[in-house]
């Protein structure tokens, strides 16, 4: 049975923090107004105080705890490798446990009103109308990420597809004998918002002769629920997915979403030993494609006459697991791409699960920096490996009045393949 850790079980993590302040340089949430409660160090001190019963669930505490994108940037730069994102997630679960989940949501909303940030209420919410949402199961990452009443009307969201990706294909798409079999963990983003990227992934795998299993009964990875502190939902999703993973025969599990990758490799294994057996099989799609020799195959293709200037954004959940080279390797090998590196490619886009919903204004500020870097790079496309990031990048670019397009690397790959 999947079980998430209680805050009290993270005491050792909390004690690892030596208060050096190093995280101040890397925390996107802190960047906006430089209040100590926003930075990893502050949140760790607050979690510690909660355990020691030195602080109540007062407004300021809730606000500070909601000010985290769970991006893990602090962890990757921390000299003592403190998992702040785990500490914050566990604290949110603790809050939900004490107050009830909806109260937490409400609490945050009240606080936000207080802070003058609360112009987020939906005025219709275009693409995310209630009607469309009906198609999306309640536990889906999309619903958790964008509870309808919180959608801001000036946010760019991709339209939901009329036919989700998983409904378009049979469960098994056979490849060439002797080649590996992969299970495609689609995630909500690809299933409902970016099914074309899913098609692109299929095309790439078929190009390599790989057999693909697309289980119909897979669910949301649960990361957005982690961010909301909804432990029961996370545990239920993990259990259901575990049952699904047990049912099939495959060599690898591929993901094309940084959040899903993180859910399967970082969150689940903390919840029970059985997940470890699956963790070994999980591959980000580009790690897998590089292992399968795709860059060499791409090199054989004729160079396109017209080259597109493309830059890459590192999704936090890949960068922090050391996956930075493979997506770039694929991009650089594409015949139609002239790759340019942008400044700050590794900094967070500002989405951060529920963060961008509750804190849309600061989320936009973080995104604006990114949009400026994209513009400075001179690229016409910014490619990445996470549907959430694509959505946020496009929103940021649009707010900045830019012309660039945010795409999945897979879309570019599909274009290039014969």
């Amino acid at each position: 049975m999947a079980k998430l850790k209680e805050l009290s079980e993270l005491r050792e993590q909390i004690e690892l923090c030596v208060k050096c302040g190093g995280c101040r340089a890397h925390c996107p949430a802190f960047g906006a107004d430089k209040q100590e409660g926003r930075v990893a160090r502050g949140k760790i001190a607050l979690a510690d105080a909660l355990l020691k019963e030195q602080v109540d669930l007062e407004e300021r505490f809730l606000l500070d705890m909601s000010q985290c994108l769970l991006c893990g940037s602090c962890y990757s730069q921390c000299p003592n490798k403190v998992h702040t994102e785990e500490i914050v997630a566990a604290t949110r679960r603790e809050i939900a446990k004490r107050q009830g989940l909806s109260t937490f949501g409400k609490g945050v909303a009240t606080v936000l009103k207080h802070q003058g940030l609360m112009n987020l209420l939906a005025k219709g919410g275009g693409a995310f109308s209630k009607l469309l949402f009906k198609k999306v199961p309640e536990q889906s990452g999309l619903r958790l990420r964008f509870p309808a009443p919180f959608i801001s009307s000036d946010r760019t969201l991709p339209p939901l597809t009329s036919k989700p990706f998983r409904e378009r294909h049979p469960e098994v798409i056979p490849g060439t004998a002797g080649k590996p079999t992969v299970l495609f963990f689609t995630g909500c983003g690809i299933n409902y918002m970016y099914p074309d990227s899913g098609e692109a992934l299929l095309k790439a795998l078929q190009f390599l002769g790989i057999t693909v299993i697309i289980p119909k009964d897979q669910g949301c990875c649960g990361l957005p629920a982690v961010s909301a502190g909804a432990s029961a939902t996370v545990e239920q999703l993990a259990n259901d997915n575990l049952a699904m993973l047990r049912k099939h025969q495959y060599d690898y599990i591929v993901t094309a979403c940084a959040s899903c990758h993180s859910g399967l490799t970082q969150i689940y294994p903390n919840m029970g030993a059985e997940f470890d057996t699956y963790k070994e099989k999980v591959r980000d799609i580009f790690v897998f494609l590089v292992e399968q020799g795709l860059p060499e195959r791409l090199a054989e293709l004729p160079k396109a006459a017209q080259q597109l200037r493309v830059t890459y954004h590192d999704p936090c959940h890949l960068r922090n697991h050391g996956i930075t080279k493979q997506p770039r390797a694929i991009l650089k090998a594409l015949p139609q791409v002239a790759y340019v590196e942008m400044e700050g490619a590794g900094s967070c886009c500002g989405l951060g699960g529920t963060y961008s919903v509750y804190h849309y204004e600061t989320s936009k500020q973080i995104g604006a920096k990114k949009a400026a870097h994209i513009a400075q790079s001179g690229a016409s496309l910014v490619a990445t490996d996470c549907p959430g990031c694509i959505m946020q990048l496009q929103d940021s670019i649009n707010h900045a009045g830019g012309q660039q397009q945010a795409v999945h690397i897979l879309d570019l790959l599909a274009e290039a393949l014969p």
Partner: protein
Amino acid sequence: MLEQSILKQLEEICGKDHVTTATADLICYSYDATQRQYRPDVVVHPGSNEEISAIMKLANSARIPVFPRGAGSGFTGGSLPISGGIVLGLSRLDKILEIDEENLVATVEPGVVTEQFQQAVEKVGLFYPPDPASLKVSTLGGNVAECAGGPRCVKYGVTKDYIIGLEIVTPTGDIIKTGGPTMKGVVGYDLTKLICGSEGTLAVITKIIIKLLPKPEAKKTMLVLFDSIDGAAQAVSAIIRGKIIPTTLEFMDGRTLDCVRKATDLQVPAGANAVLIIEVDGDREFLDKQAAKIAAIIKPLGVVETRIAETPEQSEALWQIRRSVSASLRRVNPDKFNEDICVPRSKVPEMIRKIDQISDRYAIPIVNFGHAGDGNIHVNIMIDSKVPGQSEKAEKAIAEVFAGALELGGTMSGEHGVGIMKAPFITMELSDAGIDYMKTIKKALDPNNILNPGKMFPSDRAVAPAQS
């Protein structure tokens, strides 16, 4: 708890949004890198010098202590509100006001992060050398208050060598200017230098005028492994005797190398018991010559291996060994006391030997590294504070380390200042008359002991509270 009326006045001065007494905020402004915690009564984030002036006047009339705070990266507790009162967060004063390329002078507010300032001046071909290891987070205000230094000091000096003028708010609330944007100036006492390194006890710094240099064209990094710390120390002297002043001369002792070996896959050969990272900067064509000259000078001094970086990536890889130290120390023991003594350059090996003896005597691992070029040794006393008796042993070891440094003509702090951590030891270094002289200054400028009380001079901790 402060009286409601005081809070109200603070809100009138700074605006409601910038004054907070929420428990969560008091917790978040209760610590710094010393890991000690003291809660203030209120955290205030002023937005201008006038607001700070008004706060100081109010604090003086109500006898409330005020504790200036930059990034809270201090290692000696300088920003800790040890007797409650007001934490004065300076993060809103974060603008680079001017970079004057013609006169090589910049004016900044105190909350500007050091590295961001460095990057801004480097973009226009200029250079601000002071580079504390905390430069990505620490603020220029904090750097001035502590007179921070870093690896480049050996060639370029410390923070105070670049500060030519300040705007300050005095403890009694006056706004005054010291020095100015000219390279020379001898009118009156040099208050600028007095404030630099005063650890926030004499004034709140609200503007900083900084002297800049042209940015050196290039740099070259070399890493030299020695069979003993003596070889490394002799190398430092030999290089300087050879009329070369490198930008940095960083050393790590044998115990540090052991940590690095265990914690990382960085290649450190078995016979190596000390390391120097040497960097030279200047015109490109002259760097190769300098590196070759250095290599020749130090060759006979027990060199095990010399690595010279040819590319920025290789240079980064060499620095990686130094950067991996901090994280690797935790493998020795979970808690550390980090002291930063400074001895005359030539006395570094003798000091290391003394420290090794202290370490053996107390059976506590002590790991040393630092800036050999200026004799500044970071002494890391590694303990497990959960083991009974270890903290007490560490305290004793620290006192012996300080005594050792003083015997060799050194000081108990080259960089981190006194704060609360070294205050109990200050009489080891300064004479009674010397301390009295300093206290007379403090008393004259801050008659009610409002600004950062209890720092540097331990007996002054008491502040007559008008608070309940």
